[in-house]
């Protein structure tokens, strides 16, 4: 096993002004401590080289393939979310980054060094556990200082760093408490401070907010983002909560059955999902199966059994198959009493579907409607309640036209 001895020197730097900014993150590979290493290290990372590179990593448990030849690049200072249903392999991938699992195949390069076989305690990576895993026999202060003591930091520096961390997560006055004397939110902060105390290059967060109630979760999301911006540390978060991933992460990697099915910004993930599965997994969507009837000028005409003929703007890359699904997000479906004026040739080709409102759900900020078409298919539409006294609200049983533009539709291969 190769030692990452540079980590120790990074951890024992005097606590300075910058919390792991430029020097903490990038200098690590140009290493002042490379003299300690037996062999000269590979070329230092250049700016366009990602901080973390996962190359063809695979891991099986018995016959179950948890992670299947997965590759991913993560840049320094990124807030990256791994999103997926339970059992998709996201936690296994995170545990391989932390060192608790060893990949069967592939490489994990951190700043150019393969750490796939490096033991957890020798990696410049820290993890915040889902259940926080605070040491119940140690006080808040000793929990935070635990990793610093192991790094052989001087007593005085440990005290300074702990005070810094306590202030960072706003736990002043609770240093002497034991974990069982803290609330859930306070425990979460201790866990965060403990995992950040060693100034890791990468912080791994395993469902960090799952144990908090909704209100606390939302405020903590904001605090995590603020903290990440201030520290500049690379955060990799694992979550099954898409709203959480969308709120916090700069990029999201969606996983399914051990594979990474799409890596995109939250907006692209939602508006341009790479597959039908992702479109259904992220957010709500109406789907109509059909066949491509005509293609011209970047416009597809799809004939569907459920919603008649639909006009759809073609996406890039264009679909190659004839059997497709037309997808439209509920908030992009508008309702009106009369059919809107048509504009067939222009960019705003409109699809009109006549039906009867079958269900109205008032949710406060939005109202979601279900419109039953004559074919029996149901279209979901959601409309923002922009006025307190909404005269435009529709009632169940009312005849309406549900309409949406060709540009708002997605065409996905089945």
């Amino acid at each position: 096993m190769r030692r990452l001895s540079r980590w120790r020197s990074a951890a024992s730097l005097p606590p300075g002004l910058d919390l792991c900014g430029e020097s903490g993150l990038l200098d690590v590979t140009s290493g002042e401590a490379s003299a300690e290493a037996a062999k000269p290290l590979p070329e230092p990372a250049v700016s366009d080289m990602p901080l973390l590179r996962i190359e063809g990593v695979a891991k099986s448990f018995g016959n179950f393939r948890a992670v299947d030849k997965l590759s991913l690049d993560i840049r320094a200072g990124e807030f990256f979310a791994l999103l997926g249903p339970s059992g998709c392999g996201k936690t296994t991938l995170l545990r391989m980054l932390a060192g608790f699992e060893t990949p069967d195949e592939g490489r994990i390069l951190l700043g150019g060094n393969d750490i796939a076989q490096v033991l957890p305690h020798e990696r410049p990576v820290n993890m915040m556990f889902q259940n926080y895993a605070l040491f119940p026999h140690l006080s808040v202060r000793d929990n935070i200082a635990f990793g610093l003591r192991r790094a052989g930091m001087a007593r005085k520096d440990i005290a300074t760093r702990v005070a810094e961390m306590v202030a960072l997560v706003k736990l002043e006055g609770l240093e002497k408490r034991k974990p069982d004397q803290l609330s859930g939110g306070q425990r979460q902060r201790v866990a965060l401070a403990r995992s950040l105390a060693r100034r890791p290059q990468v912080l791994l967060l395993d469902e960090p907010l799952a144990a908090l109630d909704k209100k606390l979760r939302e405020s903590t999301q904001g605090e995590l983002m603020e903290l990440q911006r201030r520290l500049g540390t690379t955060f990799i978060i694992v979550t099954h909560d898409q709203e959480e991933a969308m709120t916090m992460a700069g990029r999201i990697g969606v996983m399914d059955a051990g594979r990474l099915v799409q890596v995109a910004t939250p907006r692209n993930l939602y508006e341009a999902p790479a597959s039908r599965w992702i479109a259904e997994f992220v957010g709500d969507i109406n789907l109509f199966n059909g066949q491509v009837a005509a293609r011209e000028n970047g416009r597809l005409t799809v004939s569907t059994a459920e919603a008649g003929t639909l006009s759809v703007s073609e996406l890039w890359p264009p679909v190659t198959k004839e059997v497709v699904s037309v997808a439209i997000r509920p908030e992009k479906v508008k309702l009106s009493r009369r059919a809107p004026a048509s504009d067939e040739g222009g960019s705003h080709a409109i699809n009109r579907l006549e039906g009867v409102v079958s269900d109205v759900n008032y949710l406060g900020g939005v109202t979601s409607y279900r419109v039953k078409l004559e074919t029996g298919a149901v279209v979901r539409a959601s409309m923002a309640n922009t006025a307190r006294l909404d005269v435009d609200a529709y009632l169940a049983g009312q005849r309406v036209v549900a309409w949406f533009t060709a540009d708002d539709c997605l065409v996905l291969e089945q």
Partner: protein
Amino acid sequence: MAHTVTRLTRFNMTSLALGLAFLYLPIVILVIYSFNASRLVTVWGGWSLRWYREFFNDRAMLDAAWMSLSVGAVSATLATLLGTLAAVGLARGERFRGRALFSGMLYSPLVMPEVISGLSLLLLFVALNAERGFWTVTIAHTTLTMCFVTVVVQSRLTVLDRSLEEAAMDLGCDPVRAFLLVTLPLIVPAIVAGWMLAFTLSLDDVVIASFTTGPGSATLPIRIYSEVRLGVKPEINAICTLVIALIAVIIVVASFASKLSSARGESAAPL
């Protein structure tokens, strides 16, 4: 009505008194009679410390008591050491071939009749031509009590969150240090309980000790047993009272120690 449940009614009082009497009356009688001045066990002759003096002058009985205490302490310590290691191996180690067989074999002394254990150990010692005495009894008691320690410690380990050890490793501990700094402090109460269980079992045992001991190195229970066969002397009551007092003290001290260790946060930190 709800409040009647918590109130001490006449019926509750009576059943409580009967229950406690059933459990403790024989012991109380024994303790009282240990202060009896009379030579006859069943006749009350006034208060006296005579039989305690007698015991402290009884060389053979003192030797037996010392033998029992030292066998108990040594075998309990060995059993705790081995039992804890076995528990850690079973609860935390990699799954190895024959793991189920190993754990089954480990637990067999729990259900094995003592006569069989004692006899088989005797045959072993005879075959090895080992001189029977302190060490043979100690080894026999270690094999008897180790499984109890394993059961106690393993049950604590299985409820202990594994991510605590992972967190320790994540924060820079190698697996050994993670065990010493995080796991061990958290299972100390179970280890102490295991030691006490092993000690009392050893102190209590007659059957295995009588198979494996040699001439001149009788444990206290064997000694008492052989004395009683010749007729109960009030001195026995005094000895038993002392044993009860010893065990009571151990329990009180141990519970204080575990309270103290959970109240002090720094205990494992200064390393």
